[in-house]
């Protein structure tokens, strides 16, 4: 369904004909920013409908900014586990917080029915960290029955942490995310609400957000939704009202320095989308590349999976050092680029494409990202990697020098989808550290990316290579259309894979998803020679020694080995000197398998998984062998090239003698 009316700025979101989502968590918020004090003062009315099958006897409210309140928070403790101590030398002003002043259940007329403040307490169900303040709970005296509404009024104050992890301030740039007291999700088993962990993202119900943000006059505001009105608020401030239906979060940004650009996305068969770009002045020359990345997501994801329904999207180019780049929020996202960004490398296109792509998975499908981030990140990375291959070429490897400022583009190293933009190297190094099925917030903090993004992408691309892109596109399209706005689980996705392919895949997901097994197939032995035998054979006079050589025939022996625990059916391809190729299928189960071929010519090469269907194979170099290998040639070539670098290094240091 398309939100066609939302295309017209004169028509408010109230006029939407039919809801796309259950709209059971609706937020009406007033908030005022004090830039000097770096604080927000807000009040909100939450209208929540119990869509579950059981009564709710309590509420859970997230206070995400309390993750930045003390070094004892769960969030910061997790960062410290991997040697990252961002608040190690923080001063008092660097810490952020979110503090509820009042919280009450209210009646329809706004009068207080029950003051919940006395019952409000901090809880830490995930790690029993009594110092964590990122999740609260309050018991209700009157349960909320299935289908009933609960209206909560909350007033709070929050202070921004200093330019920190996707929320914060630098200079006059404010990026405001996870900023308001927010309900958990009430599901079959009760409340799903976790503390704020270093790797967990977010999960919440869909609803209508009507938010009035008061900021200094003249400052540009970008937010989830579309601006409905702008009014003087006195004291040199202006109130901007943004409204959006059918979203599960609300983020905003403000700065007096943004350069604003707009462009309209139009593509045959897809609804138009107004793209609004809020750009840092130093990136003015990169405006078109931001639109290119966004339009690529809208076009390809739209064609492949389904149309983007909101009619508008806001791209925020984050300020230097804001640490707010590369994050998605409904109808708004942050990109992130560099002042010097050479063409021919997908910066900023990649991050913009990726975050715009999240609008489809995180934004609409909206699975529980605190527990199963891969179902969003993996599907999105898989998709954006394909878009990059189709639409954003060339894409060369770039490295930066001199304090990480000066880019150097390696025209000899074009990034390939299968290995580079699927981040094979990251998976190769850390793919076995955790199982993908581990709840995301319980993953070892350093492995989240390697698993949720990269292993998941390679898993999906392996399926694509096994079943073809067309089948995989149908899988994702079916999943997207069936489960959008419904919070699916991994098993829902696996069921769609089985359904569309017509084949069971438990054997595959048991290994790739539910275990930390890795894959490595190798050609262990490869030889081709005239078959000869020696030994004692029966003869009329008894056992006699005999030597036998079969002229005109060569016996080729290939030993294929499975070096890791992962099992995957693979092909073995042997090529002979006359050009003949023989392909054998192997179920890959045994630890090793011998293949023997008798031919009039010698074999020249043998490969296991020659098409590299199994992209999860961590060591592909050992997948092949040839009779006349070029290893010496390659090793000589590259060691000589390396030697020039070393000589140059010596000459650079010779400056000091």
């Amino acid at each position, binding site marked *: 369904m398309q939100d066609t009316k939302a295309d017209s700025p004169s028509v408010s979101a109230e006029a939407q004909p039919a809801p796309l989502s259950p709209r059971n968590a609706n937020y009406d918020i007033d908030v005022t920013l004090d830039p000097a004090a770096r604080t927000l003062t807000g009040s909100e009315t939450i209208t929540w409908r119990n869509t579950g099958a059981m009564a709710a006897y309590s509420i859970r409210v997230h206070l995400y900014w309390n993750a930045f309140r003390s070094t004892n928070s769960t969030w910061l403790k997790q960062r410290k586990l991997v040697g990252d101590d961002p608040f190690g030398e923080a001063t008092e002003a660097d810490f952020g917080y979110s503090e509820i002043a009042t919280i009450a259940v209210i009646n329809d007329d706004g009068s207080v029915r029950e003051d919940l403040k006395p019952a409000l307490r901090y809880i830490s169900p995930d790690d029993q960290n009594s110092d964590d303040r990122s999740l609260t709970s309050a018991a209700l005296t009157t349960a909320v029955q299935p289908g009933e509404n609960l209206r909560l009024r909350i007033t709070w104050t929050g202070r921004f942490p200093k330019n920190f992890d996707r929320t914060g301030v630098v200079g006059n740039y404010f990026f405001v995310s996870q900023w308001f007291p927010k309900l958990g999700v009430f599901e079959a088993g009760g409340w799903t609400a976790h503390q704020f962990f270093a790797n967990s993202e977010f999960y919440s119900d869909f609803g209508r957000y009507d938010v009035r943000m008061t900021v200094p006059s003249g400052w540009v505001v970008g937010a989830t939704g579309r601006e409905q009105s702008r009014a003087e608020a006195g004291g040199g401030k202006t109130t901007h009202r943004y409204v959006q239906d059918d979203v599960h979060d609300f983020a905003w940004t403000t700065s007096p320095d943004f350069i604003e650009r707009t462009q309209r996305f139009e593509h045959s068969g897809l609804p138009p989308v107004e793209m609004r770009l809020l750009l840092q002045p130093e990136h003015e020359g990169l405006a078109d590349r931001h639109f290119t990345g966004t339009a690529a997501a809208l076009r390809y994801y739209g064609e492949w999976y389904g149309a983007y329904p909101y009619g508008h999207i806001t791209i925020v180019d984050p300020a230097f050092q804001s640490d707010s780049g590369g994050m998605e929020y409904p109808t708004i996202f942050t990109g992130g680029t560099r002042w010097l960004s050479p063409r021919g490398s997908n910066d900023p296109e990649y991050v913009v494409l990726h975050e715009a792509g999240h609008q489809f998975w995180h934004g609409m499908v909206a699975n529980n990202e605190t527990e199963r981030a891969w179902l969003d990140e993996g599907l999105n990375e898989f998709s954006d990697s394909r878009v990059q291959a189709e639409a954003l070429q060339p894409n060369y490897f770039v490295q930066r020098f001199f304090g990480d400022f000066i880019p150097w583009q390696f025209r000899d190293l074009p990034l390939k989808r299968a290995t580079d933009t699927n981040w094979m190297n990251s998976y190769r190094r850390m793919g076995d550290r955790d199982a993908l099925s581990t709840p995301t917030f319980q993953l070892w903090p350093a492995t989240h990316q390697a698993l949720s993004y990269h292993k998941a992408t390679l898993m999906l691309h392996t399926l694509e290579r096994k079943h073809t892109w067309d089948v995989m596109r149908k899988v994702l399209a079916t999943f997207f259309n069936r489960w959008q706005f419904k919070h699916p689980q991994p098993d829902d996705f696996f069921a769609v894979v089985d359904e569309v392919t017509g084949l069971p895949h438990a054997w595959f997901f048991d290994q790739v998803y539910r275990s930390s097994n890795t894959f490595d197939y190798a050609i262990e032995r490869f030889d081709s020679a005239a078959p000869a035998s020696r030994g004692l054979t029966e003869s009329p006079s008894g056992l006699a020694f005999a030597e036998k050589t079969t002229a005109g025939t060569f016996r080729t022996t290939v030993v294929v080995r499975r070096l890791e625990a992962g099992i995957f059916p693979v092909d073995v391809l042997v090529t002979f000197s006359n050009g003949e190729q023989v392909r054998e299928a192997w179920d890959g189960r045994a630890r090793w398998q011998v293949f023997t071929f008798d031919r009039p010519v010698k074999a020249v090469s043998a490969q296991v998984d020659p098409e590299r269907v199994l992209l999860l194979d961590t060591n592909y*170099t050992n997948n092949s062998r040839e009779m006349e290998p070029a290893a010496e040639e390659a090793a000589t070539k590259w060691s000589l090239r390396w030697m020039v670098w070393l000589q140059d290094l010596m000459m650079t240091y010779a400056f000091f*003698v």
Partner: protein
Amino acid sequence: MSIGAAFSDGLMRVKRAPWLVIGLWLSTLVLALPLSLALQGQIGAHLGDSMAARSAADGMNFDWWNEFLAQSSGVGQTFVPAILGFAAVLQNLSGIADASGPPTAVVWVVVAQLMVSTFLIGGVLDRLARDHAIGAGGFFSACGVYVFRFLRLSIVSVAVYAFLFVTVHRWLFDGVYPRLLEGLAAERTAFFYRLGLYAIFGLPVVFANLVFDYAKVRAVVEDRRSMVGALSAGWRFVRRNLGAAIGLYALNSLALVAVLLLYYLAAPGAAANAVAFAIGQLFIVLRVISRLQFAASQTALFQGRLAHAGYTARPVAKWPDSPAADAIGPA
């Protein structure tokens, strides 16, 4: 003597000393060879009989490269994309500017090269100062004469450079730079701050380099035994000829930049093989010439300003009856 004259005189002196160029180039080659062979062994062992070797030999197999990096250790870890073409130059200059030091696996080669250079520089300066052939015996005798003097000088230079690269660099880039960046929302400004700090850091480094260069020149030309005296004399020369010394240094630096630009234009891609090696070695030869040009032109300037071209206080050293033998034996 003018800056231009010193520069061109220096260039002619280098031209008239081709064996110096060849010798210094060979010294880099010989020092780099053992680790190159080790890397060759690692790469060869990793590729084995794999078909991946074919694409690595013909061009670049980036996936294999990453796989190799994930599984290698020691010198293999230095085989990164930044060794390719002109990126190698950027990587090495960037390492100096950011005081990151050479990768651990090759530190000993750099240290060995510094030791070899310390040994050779006496002979190099002696040859360039005389501006006529002195033969291998004369050259190495001169190396022997000056090596212990320059080792003593290097105690001071190592201390000064260590102070600059550790204390001053850390203060500028780990102390001042983060403070400049506090609350900064524009990367471009940060870049110019860093550029400014590079300049601030570079000035004392260049100045120290100038003084040490002229200390060595004076030690050789005037046959100074006291390195404190040579250092003081080098300092006096730079102070009294500040414009010329700096101007010549700038001109030589420009020549070095021209060499780097040439390599930027000619640096081979991944596909080339024998030609790439040849271009790479030609570049190293040019870098050697450039290094010698600094020494030769500074020597020419000193001789032109205070004495006369080709003057050296010490007669050509003879082997085995050289003063070096006296220096290493009991008096």
